[in-house]
């Protein structure tokens, strides 16, 4: 395989490419799902292929194939060059890459128990046991439990001499209970945005799906008769899982430099965080410190090297509330006279690296969760994401959560259903006056972050602790 890759790189050079990189990727997955007592999905997938990205005549070209063979190497490399030359017909300036060190190395997700070594029957029995406990009450009409395993082996090589092998293992599991009564539908899930991790099977065991199932089912049923979320301006305390999605949508996407430079304008949009704001714009209160950290154990955006061969990094994005850096790739970092901070990631072998979130984390503050509730006289505490929408500049948003509780006199009170809140990104983060400490800081994330055309779906992480926000508009009425 290595010889074929070297041949492709050499061929690209000979035929006029000033730069080329090849990625060979083998992805394996196994998904188990039990629904209403019946094993619904039990499937295994394997996808293998390679892609070559070249710069020729100063422009990018990329071609990929599921066949890594001598003749296909020549055909696909030619194709990438042909595409680059077509791109060059509209170029304004040549692509310029930020310099990187030549790396010959490897990375492997540390795992205690390789999840693919765990017998199917063991995984299935865990799901059947947990799923049964979800539906103890008759109002639970749909009960689901799942376990997902992923392993991605990648080989990267470029014409600058880098040769990198990586093996990323990801796994997780979760529960979803849907309660229905008199036409009303309420959904409760566990652990919501904390369901997967780059880790071994020990992560799935740590979720204690069985121990949480009955509570989740019961909460779904209780939501049917809970108080409707009031419409008012109030104090909002948000749990880690909901805040992870908030961070994802209103910070993670907003700090992607390609969006800020307008190159995603044709699809998902741009960013209100335009380059002149870098280093001076008050994104949040002084409590708000956000990092992009691809090195933290367990994060869904944790790796050794990005898909341009840049070493994983930890980059401060928001410091004491001030917006201080973007997520960058090699060809965008040069626009800011910077070097790439290692955020170029591709969805498998058939796609090009785009600027993607790694692990966008809100740094822990100093509050104990119990003290934060006790310190809040009146407000709402929301848990776990249910619906989301944000504008094309990542400026104005609306989020819905699965469940909430009123806060009165420093104590959690009645359960609230259909909680929702709206806001404007910088005003929202500036209203943050407390972030909880390490004891309640959790690594969350999503397996399904979409971006680009053709659409690329990627896994990204968000480390977060619960936080408090003042004067937030809750309870959207229609």
């Amino acid at each position, binding site marked *: 395989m290595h010889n074929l890759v070297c041949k492709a790189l050499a061929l690209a050079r000979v035929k006029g490419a000033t730069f080329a990189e090849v990625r060979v990727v083998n992805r394996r997955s196994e998904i188990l799902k039990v629904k209403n007592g*019946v094993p619904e*999905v*039990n*499937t*295994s*997938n*394997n*996808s*293998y292929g390679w*892609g070559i990205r070249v710069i020729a005549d100063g*422009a*990018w070209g*990329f*071609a*990929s194939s*599921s066949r890594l063979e001598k003749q296909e190497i020549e055909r696909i490399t030619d*194709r*990438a060059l*042909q*595409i*680059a030359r*077509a*791109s060059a*017909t*509209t*170029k*304004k300036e040549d692509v310029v890459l930020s310099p990187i060190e030549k790396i010959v190395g490897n990375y492997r997700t540390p795992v205690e128990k390789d999840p693919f070594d765990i017998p*199917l029957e063991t995984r*299935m029995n865990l799901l059947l046991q947990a799923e049964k406990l979800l539906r103890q009450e008759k109002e639970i*009409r*749909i009960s*689901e439990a799942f376990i997902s395993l992923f392993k991605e082996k990648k080989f990267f090589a470029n014409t600058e001499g880098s040769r990198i092998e990586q093996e990323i293992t990801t796994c997780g599991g979760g529960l979803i209970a*849907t309660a*229905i009564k008199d036409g009303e*539908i309420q959904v409760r899930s566990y652990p919501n945005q904390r369901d997967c991790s780059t880790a071994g099977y020990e992560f799935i065991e740590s979720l204690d799906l069985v121990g949480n199932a009955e509570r989740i089912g019961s909460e779904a049923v209780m939501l049917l008769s809970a108080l409707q979320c009031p419409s008012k301006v109030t104090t909002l305390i948000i749990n880690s899982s909901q805040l992870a999605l908030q961070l994802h949508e209103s910070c993670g996407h907003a700090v992607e430099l390609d969006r800020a430079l*307008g*190159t995603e*304008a*044709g*699809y998902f*949009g741009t960013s209100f965080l335009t380059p002149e704001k870098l280093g001076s714009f008050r994104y949040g209160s002084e409590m708000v410190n956000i990092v992009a950290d691809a090195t933290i154990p367990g994060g869904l955006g944790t790796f050794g090297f990005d898909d341009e061969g840049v070493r994983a990094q930890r980059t401060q994005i928001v410091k004491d509330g001030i917006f201080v850096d973007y997520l960058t790739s090699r060809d965008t970092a040069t626009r800011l006279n910077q070097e790439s901070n290692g955020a170029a990631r591709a969805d498998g072998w*058939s*796609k*090009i690296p785009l600027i993607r979130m790694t692990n966008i984390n809100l740094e822990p503050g100093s509050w104990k969760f119990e003290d934060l509730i006790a310190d809040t006289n009146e407000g709402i505490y929301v848990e776990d994401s249910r*619906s*989301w*929408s*944000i*504008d*094309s500049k990542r*400026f*104005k948003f*609306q989020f*819905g959560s699965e469940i909430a509780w009123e806060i009165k006199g420093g104590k959690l009170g009645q359960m609230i259903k259909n909680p*929702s809140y*709206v806001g404007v990104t910088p005003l929202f983060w500036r209203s943050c006056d407390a972030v909880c400490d390490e004891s309640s800081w959790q690594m969350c994330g999503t397996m399904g972050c979409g971006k680009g*055309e*053709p659409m690329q779906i990627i896994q990204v992480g968000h480390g977060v602790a619960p936080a408090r926000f003042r004067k937030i508009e809750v309870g*959207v009425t*229609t």
Partner: protein
Amino acid sequence: MRVEDLLLRVLNYSKSKVDQTEVLYIGQKSALTRFANNFIHQNVSEKDATISLRVIIGKKIGSASTNRLDERSLKQTVDKALEIAKTQKETLHPKSLPTQAKYANLNTFIELTAKCTPQERAEAVSEIIALAQKNKVMASGAFSTNAMDLAIANSLGLQAHQMLTEAKLNLVVTGEGEASGYASHLSRDVAVIDPRALAEEAIKKCLQAKDPISLKAGDYAVILEPYAVGDLVVLLGSMGLGALALQEGRSFMCGKLGQNIAGENITIWDDGLDPLGMPMSFDFEGVPKRKVVLIENGIAKGVVYDSYTASKEGKSSTGHGLPAPNTSGPFPLHLFMKAGDSSIEEMIASTERGIYVTRFHYTNPVDVASTTITGMTRDASFLIENGRIKQPLKDLRVNQSVLKALSRVSLVSKETRLVEASRFPGWVRVPAIKVDKFTFTGTT
């Protein structure tokens, strides 16, 4: 090797070991030229072929897939599916695979689309960029040309094979003063994609949309272009026009079949055979596509089925199965909404005060039971006063029940447009509509 022979070979691997086997082959050659800020910045091509297997042993089902098509890998994939099926628990509702069928002969493969070169796409993009530069605006978007080879065979003798192409051009044009405009077109035939016409449409909108003002949130009459209507109709599909959602009690159609759920002027159906959509002869189980009326003159009429949901009710599949394994159930991929006799010009002229919306952004369901969705307007909205477009508007947030909106439609355009669903799979051909009361809950 011919695709049909490949499928039969895989069926033979499992023949003596299982009761039933299904083999699905999806071969794809995709190319996409992406541009932004008036230059091509991403330009890619992809070639892949995947075999997906479903095996049934008694009441146990296993599935596995691979894109490695050598004999050893295919045999390993068969063995994996068998291993999975054997360790599986028995299902309550055993699926029997579909049987042999006859398929409509549709023209779904256009050679010109399949053979479109990077140079040809770049030329189309250059034409757009030239028009954008002439008008001092920036063009961004993507021009894609794709070919799919879809084949299914099962051990009950079913054999289906179809080649499909798709060409698509999306365009966002931005200009000074927060202005933007949008246009898109898709077809099986790349020759009918007119880059100049699309560029003119988006640029015209953009130039009109300069210096938008904020409008107070509230209820307004609204005129929705087909791009916006398509979004609402597909969201409606996602909230319960499939049989599984109905059977599980999570569809807005629950208890409503036969009842009035929208205005009399609203008829929505799914028809994968209609050449005015993106036709295909059969679904991903090899079941022939069939027209299904979902809402007729405002009355809830039915939902779409795959073989699993159909067998639960003793019915026949309507040809709406997605590739296995699929937990979402059948889905209407080819939606249509009946045209009326009005025009966008008439709608504007009839509006004393209202909002004109080109399209929505990031729409998502908020409450399935009431079909409430939220999202933002995007790429040119306008205030209408006294029958005329008065002023461009900043983006507005929508929180609206789709069915309530479809109950308040006073005008429907004669012209329809084929648009792609933005957040869910599928295509939809819809008219423009005027809704007398539509809820906006915020503005930028």
